């Protein structure tokens, strides 16, 4: 099977990106796949706590100082077949940490021996986050039913699209997108609607229109709804996928839901480890279902809720 990169984002903090990343990784390891789980939240790394291990700061430092390979920074997790990369990158020169080090990091990451690499992108919509997201084979967004989380999801998607299309256009030599308009479309209080922005880009010419259409077509989002407390809320996944398709003209799949579960809270304070959480009867089948949908590119329809 081809090596796959999964990137998990969603914009808002605390939706469950880390929990889901760790559960997907545990699930894949259980299927005898070689898994590398990456705490891409390189400022606020917390994945290691789910496995009761410490981040390997010194070897990550050594990697950036070119004294060691990235494979030497892999941390054993206690789950067989599952290795973790985690560490605090804040101690590096702040000006360069964002771009170079991440660039180098991802380049080497892709060369590691693994069947699946799962990157927990952390919160936010910074350029590095968007780029890592766009680089992934599976672009996964996590939302809860809360309106702020949904709002952040739209913002994330919007920024991903703008980033992608703008890159594609400028790659083809079309760089004359008005900066004021770009600023405006990315701000929260738009003076220009997203759909008008897209029309405007398409209106620049036949070639541009094709680039925009192709770019949108290349984005496929896998939606996961988390912290579902009532069945009714799982329908939000259907709504969101429909809205992403209709309004943003991208491909969207609803990969499934994870219910709210108190046991998951214990992960964060270290009183439960990921494997024991994964084994819970309400959790394992859901993760199996969601992971399966993501791998296969299939999705949940209304009649399957």
């Amino acid at each position, binding site marked *: 099977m081809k090596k796959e990169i999964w990137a998990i984002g969603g914009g808002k903090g605390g939706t469950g990106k880390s929990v889901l990343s760790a559960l997907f990784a545990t699930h894949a390891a259980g299927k005898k796949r070689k898994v590398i789980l990456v705490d891409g939240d390189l400022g606020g790394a917390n994945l290691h706590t789910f496995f009761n291990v410490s981040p390997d700061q010194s070897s990550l430092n050594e990697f950036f100082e070119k004294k060691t390979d990235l494979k030497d920074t892999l941390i054993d997790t206690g789950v067989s077949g599952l290795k973790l990369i985690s560490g605090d990158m804040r101690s590096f020169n702040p000006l*360069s940490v964002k771009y170079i080090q991440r660039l180098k990091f991802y380049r080497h990451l892709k060369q590691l021996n693994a069947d699946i690499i799962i990157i927990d992108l952390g919160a936010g919509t910074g350029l590095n986050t968007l780029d890592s997201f766009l680089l992934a084979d599976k672009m996964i967004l996590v939302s809860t039913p809360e309106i702020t989380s949904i709002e952040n999801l739209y913002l994330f998607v919007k920024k991903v699209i703008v980033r992608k299309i703008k890159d594609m256009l400028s790659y083809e030599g079309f760089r004359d997108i008005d900066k004021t308009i770009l600023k405006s479309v990315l701000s929260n209080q738009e003076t*220009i609607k997203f759909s008008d922005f897209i029309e405007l880009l398409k209106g620049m010419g036949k070639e541009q229109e094709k680039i925009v259409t192709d770019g949108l077509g290349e984005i496929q989002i896998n939606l996961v709804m988390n912290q579902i407390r009532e069945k009714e809320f799982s329908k939000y996944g259907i709504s969101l996928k429909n809205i992403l398709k209709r309004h943003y003209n991208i491909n969207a799949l609803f990969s499934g839901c994870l219910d709210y579960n108190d046991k998951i809270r214990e992960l964060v304070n270290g009183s439960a480890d990921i494997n024991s959480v994964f084994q819970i009867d309400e959790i394992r089948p859901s993760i199996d279902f969601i992971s399966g949908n993501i791998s296969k590119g299939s999705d949940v329809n209304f009649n399957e809720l």
Partner: protein
Amino acid sequence: MKKRKKKEYLSILELGEKASRDDIENAYSHFVKLYSSEYSPEIHPLKEEIPKEERKKILSDIDKAYKALVGEDGVNRIDFSAEFEPQEIILDEGEGAAIEHVKIEPSKEVQEESEPVVEFEFTDETIQKIPVDESIDDINEKNELIVEIPESEKEYNEIPDEIEHQVIEMDEDIPDEDEEMEGSIEEEPEISEPQVIEFEEDLPDENVDMDGSIEEGPEIIVQEEVVVDKDPVDADVEITGKYLKKIRESRKLKVRDIGEILNIEYKSIVHIENEKFEKLNDPGFLRWLIKSYSKFLGLNEEKSAGDYMRRYRSKK
């Protein structure tokens, strides 16, 4: 109905091929509810982006699919033109089944709106004229310096080890406070990000695309890498918000970037620097913030937290 056509209609209602009559009814009423009001949580954040006219178009799409699937007898008895009136959906359960009435109550806010009822039309939306604020100066323009990357550097050779990391940054002013508070003006991606090219001998080809955006950028600034002192703090300097700001600015760092790196709301940094204590309500969290931020700036975190929290407590 042709199989392909049926699949198409089902997919409009987000239904799989095995959908039952009940599923169709459920999906239909879900979407009618979803797109009928701008107050559904999934629509609300986009209420400006997806205006009423567009929602009507979507509703008609959904309605067409529904009718096609259940046949004219399951007839849609919703009057979409009366969007802001309470709607009664009558779902026909088929022969002999009891007729079910589902009432969709629009939320209060909706009822209060005295908007005229818009006729249900199929016309294509004309693209709106885009309002552009001409008065916004492009701050970046002024500070930009054109730099050509010499061919030799593009080839990643002969670069001495010390300058292996060359920071190429588009300069950008730190947005003023009001702008920060609104959090509304997001810089255009390519400029907001310090862009760095790493010159490394073993650069594999596959990454050219990632680096590509840098080389193709028409205007870039080459800036010396800022050397961060280990701990420049005099023991007798009191660490205040102002001091943190001064250090940050001396290092040409932007709150936004720091926010991203530290994974914290950049607004908190603005509040910290301006000592807006009323916006910083959680002392425990604040202490953590000060420590992370000052550590990031290369300051002694314990001293910074101690000094700052003392001021915080005395002023609050």
